[in-house]
């Protein structure tokens, strides 16, 4: 027997801040033993811009564009959350047509976000091609949204009391064509990706999240729904025009990476259903509430409003002290909570699995850093 003088050591590996699969400037400090991870620690804050502090230094209208830049992938949901919170402060009732418009556009934006996630996630798993198909589909949505809102990514379209512009016939025709097209595309995604043996082997049985962990870490969105908890703000605390539509909350059963993938895929189908119903039932009427004060100066009060973004629960808490500027705005972002479970999931996994788990969280780093 030969005695080898080998010292076994763990070593540190910096995954990021510049790394192809951290999707932005996230840094994960890994402690590794060979290819296995013994400890993972996300280091955040590289993209901190101080949105919450900015809110304290500008009036309510001026803060509106910031909302498109917190989560750039589902900007319209943030727009909606902020507008709803301020409307609550001022006691404005939004006309029904405006609510329908908000739902349609926000759901389109949700699909765009999920499509981007599917593509980027498969890129993390080493499949190059799907992202271009997803972008092809997403492009259609961006064109539609561009038509109405005037921008393609960092939207600033909703106003206190309604929306700025009404839909036109071309948008409605384009939306219907797109819904049909994307439904056909889902079959391709199923056949080429979901049923692929390599993909199933990579995604099944990796990154389990139990129901208890979901509650402990305050996870929201597809992360909890993948673990089998049907928690969705659109159903549990209905807002806007959502109660008027018939849709389901897709949930997974085991809570692994595959379930989160399937949940997001099925959510896109549900979003299409919502849009279809909204277009069918679209009421006539004004798109802007009548009595919206030019100068927003709410009375001394506090308000909380939550909306469901593509990543989970976005909550906004506004404290007003009767000034033109909010006294304090607190943004509760879903990605922050979702990322916090990573250190627990990463232990004793391979680097490849960590990439799969991190990808399945669908974190948007600017949202975490705010």
């Amino acid at each position, binding site marked *: 027997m030969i005695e080898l003088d080998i010292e076994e050591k763990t070593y540190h*590996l910096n995954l990021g801040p510049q790394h*192809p699969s951290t999707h932005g400037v996230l840094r994960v400090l890994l402690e590794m033993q060979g*290819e296995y991870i013994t400890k993972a620690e996300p280091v955040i804050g590289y993209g901190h811009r101080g949105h919450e502090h900015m809110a304290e230094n500008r009036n309510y209208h001026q803060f509106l564009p910031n909302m498109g830049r917190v989560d750039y992938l589902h900007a319209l949901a943030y727009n909606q959350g902020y507008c709803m919170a301020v409307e609550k402060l001022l006691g404005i009732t939004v006309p029904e047509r405006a609510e329908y418009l908000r739902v349609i556009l926000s759901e389109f934006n949700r699909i765009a976000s999920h499509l981007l996630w599917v593509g980027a996630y498969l890129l993390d798993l*080493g*499949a*190059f*091609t799907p992202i271009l198909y997803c972008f092809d589909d997403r492009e259609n949505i961006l064109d539609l949204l561009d038509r109405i809102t005037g921008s393609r990514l960092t939207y600033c379209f909703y106003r206190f009391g309604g929306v700025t512009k009404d839909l036109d016939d071309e948008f409605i025709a384009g939306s219907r064509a797109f819904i049909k097209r994307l439904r056909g595309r889902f079959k391709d995604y199923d056949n080429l990706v979901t049923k692929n043996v390599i*993909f199933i082997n990579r995604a099944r049985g990796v990154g389990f999240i139990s129901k208890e962990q979901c509650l402990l870490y305050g996870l929201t969105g597809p992360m909890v729904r993948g673990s089998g908890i049907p928690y969705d703000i659109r159903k549990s605390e209905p807002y806007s025009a959502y109660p008027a539509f018939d849709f389901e909350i897709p949930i997974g059963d085991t809570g692994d990476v595959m379930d989160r993938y399937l949940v997001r895929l099925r959510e896109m189908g549900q979003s299409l259903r919502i849009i279809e119903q909204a277009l069918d039932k679209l009421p006539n009427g004004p798109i802007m509430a009548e009595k919206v004060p030019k100068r927003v100066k709410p009375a001394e009060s506090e308000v909380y409003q939550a909306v469901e973004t593509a990543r989970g629960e976005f909550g906004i808490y506004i404290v007003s002290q009767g000034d033109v500027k909010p006294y304090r705005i607190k943004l509760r972002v879903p990605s922050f909570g979702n990322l916090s479970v990573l250190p627990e999931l990463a232990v004793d996994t*391979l680097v490849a699995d960590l*990439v799969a788990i991190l990808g399945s969280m669908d974190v948007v780093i600017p949202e975490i850093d705010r």
Partner: protein
Amino acid sequence: MELLAQYLGTEVGRLIVGLIGVMALVAVNALFLIWMERKVSAHMQLRLGPMEVGWHGFIQTVCDALKLMGKELITPEEVDRPVYLLAPIVVFLPVFLVFLVVPFSSSIIIKDMNVGLLLILAFSTIAVLAILMAGWSSNNKYSVLGAIRSVAQNVAYEIPLLITVMSIVLTVGSFRLTDIVAAQTSYWFVLTQPLAFILYIVCATAETNRSPFDLPEAESELVAGFHTEYSGMRFAMFFLAEYTNMFIVSAVASVLFLGGWHGPLLPGLIWFLLKVYAIIFLMMWFRWTFPRVRFDQLISFAWKILIPLSFANLLITALVLKL
């Protein structure tokens, strides 16, 4: 002039002409394959790929190569210098030598050796050493991880590859590549050995570090794997070696299973190249449609599935031959 002709007639002359030819082929082939890969991937991804330089971007890769030549060669400070500098050469040399025995047609072969196949298999193994050298000397954690993966992967996949090839050698009774091709005049071995062909293609994809087995350079995990720290022409050498390796494994596949230069109407060389590029196209198709397997899955796939299967294939072949 007469002297030159006389000189060229000898063995040495044949070698020199051959080597020059191989050099030209390696360069042109790599440029063509990179262009082909970009085009194939583009059309699979709803894109057009390079379109600007030349007909459908045909000269694009030439320009890219020129650009790479003009780039600064950066040597990071903490690298193991001699090993670091040697690795790109070591990766390229064996690839080059293997061309000695590849039969492009019944007459175009530089040296028809009786151990041709063995030589190819032996030389292509050296590439692993080069990858290990590159990864180790780079003094970069991602590079080391890539290199370790590469060695484990290549060792695992060499075994089924060799055993699979053995079943063909058993049938023909020779390591000489021209003999193997000559044995396929009436039918191709892919018809009698379909399992061996599939096994060979899988192993060859893994041997050349191509997706879905591209773990040594898995960029979503390891940034660029073992060649993270290489730049300019040194990086290009790894790139060149990868594409030339693809050509070689495809050439061996066409010799072993698809009847080499045999084919109706067209000259032998054309048939040979057609078959080679068809197999290369297949490998590109894999790359642009499959996700990447995980490292432990890759290794257990080799040891638990491919090796038993290739052994079974060898045993059955031996049994059938005996009967």
